[in-house]
């Protein structure tokens, strides 16, 4: 809370609320759908940026203040330290999700907001783990944050990239084209399916269903374990 995450969340909420109310006045029709679509997209990207910044900056402070070195010197397993941090950050992600969902309740039905919120929480959990991996690996804020956002952007857009590569407007058979196609295909296998998470359509057109969350939960579990393994692998090899 020293980073004033809650105050930042409330500020984001206030600005977003003002903005979507203004947008609602501009729309000739579908003003509720317009408002909720833009608000949901804004809140989601803000939540991702805030959590990534928070995790990276907090961990970096522990590294710079030598707190981490002190803890490592104690008889505490590195995995316990990692899991403690992970659970703490997930709680913060939960607070941000609850705050943001409250505002959405003004514009969308409760059940759809609940589905969207659970999905956002799963997405933020992935961001927390990803940010931990990046900061353990790179130990510098610019590189770690760039890594998080590049990974996130690629995961959100990889399905569209894949479709564009598979069905190009003008077909080419050059080696470079083949290479790009294969490369994107490999990425689709490696990256999480983030385009399925936290869909604005659920809030705009009431199309969300609770069973949609099951594959998201499975994907999150698999990827959290994978990224945690990477983070721990790196963490255990580090000398302080």
């Amino acid at each position: 809370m020293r980073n004033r995450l809650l105050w930042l969340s409330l500020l984001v909420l206030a600005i977003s609320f003002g903005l979507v109310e203004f947008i609602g006045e501009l729309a000739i029709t579908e003003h509720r759908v317009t408002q909720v679509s833009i608000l949901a997209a804004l809140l989601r990207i803000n939540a991702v940026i805030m959590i990534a910044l928070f995790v990276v900056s907090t961990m970096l402070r522990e590294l710079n203040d030598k707190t981490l070195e002190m803890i490592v010197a104690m008889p505490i397993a590195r995995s316990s330290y990692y899991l403690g941090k992970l659970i703490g950050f997930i709680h913060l992600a939960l607070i941000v999700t609850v705050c943001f969902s409250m505002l959405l309740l003004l514009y969308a039905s409760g059940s759809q907001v609940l589905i969207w919120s659970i999905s956002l929480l799963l997405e933020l959990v992935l961001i927390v783990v990803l940010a931990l991996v990046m900061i353990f690996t790179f130990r510098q804020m610019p590189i770690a944050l760039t890594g998080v956002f590049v990974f996130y952007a690629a995961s959100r857009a990889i399905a569209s990239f894949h479709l564009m590569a598979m069905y190009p407007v003008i077909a080419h058979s050059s080696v470079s084209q083949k290479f790009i196609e294969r490369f994107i295909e490999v990425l689709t296998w490696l990256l999480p399916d983030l385009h399925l998470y936290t869909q604005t359509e659920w809030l705009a057109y009431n199309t969300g269903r609770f069973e949609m969350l099951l594959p998201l939960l499975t994907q999150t579990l698999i990827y959290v374990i994978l990224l945690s393994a990477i983070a721990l692998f790196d963490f255990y090899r580090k000398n302080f």
Partner: protein
Amino acid sequence: MFRRYLDKERPFGDVPLPVTIVLVLALIAQLIWHGSQAQIAPRAEDLPQPLSPGTYIIGSLGEPIATAKVLNLWLQAFDNQPGLSLPLHSLDYSVVIEWLDTILELDPEGHYPMLVAARVYGSVSDRVRQREMMAFIFDKFSQEPEKHWRWLAHAVIVARHELKDMPLALKYANALADKAAVSAVPYWAKDMRIMLLEDMDQVEAAKALVGGLIVSGEVTDPHELDFLKMKLAELEDRMTKSRQDVDK
């Protein structure tokens, strides 16, 4: 409250004089620089071509619906550029149609592009451009009659009363009636061809359309209802004025 923060600072006198001088000089230089720049003149910009829907999806990190809503508002406001207000008919309508198509592709459930096609871009005084927009609506109706019938109903009214093209109005009204067997087109809309043949005046036709829309429950958005009522009031006002002119 602010005193706490001010007390933490050292006095202004502690700042070296050269730093203060540089600060003031830099501020003056900035003001002189800005004053020497040429005044910005408002310049109308052409509507650019839309990018592919895939590009917008990637650019928005997988948010096609939110992007569609933002593009709706941007396109709707394009005639109001900084310092200028362009007449709608000065826009290149073939590009406008491309934008509307792109937005519909990003958000297939949205009605916004159809509404602006019918009631914003289709309400200009340029008959050629009005026809382009009505053709766009007819094209979309042919693809998905259940979703777009109410916009074609509007096109019937425009073709009859603004374009004064009875064959075109009948073509649209017939399409509405023909699709009735397989779609949810309501009775009043199917009956528009009868209304055409009875040659009703514009206000009555518009009243029938608005009344039918409200009764059908298709229009639920309060903003759209207000917009329709405003349009109706405008029509009635115009009608009253033309009647007064005839009486004189």
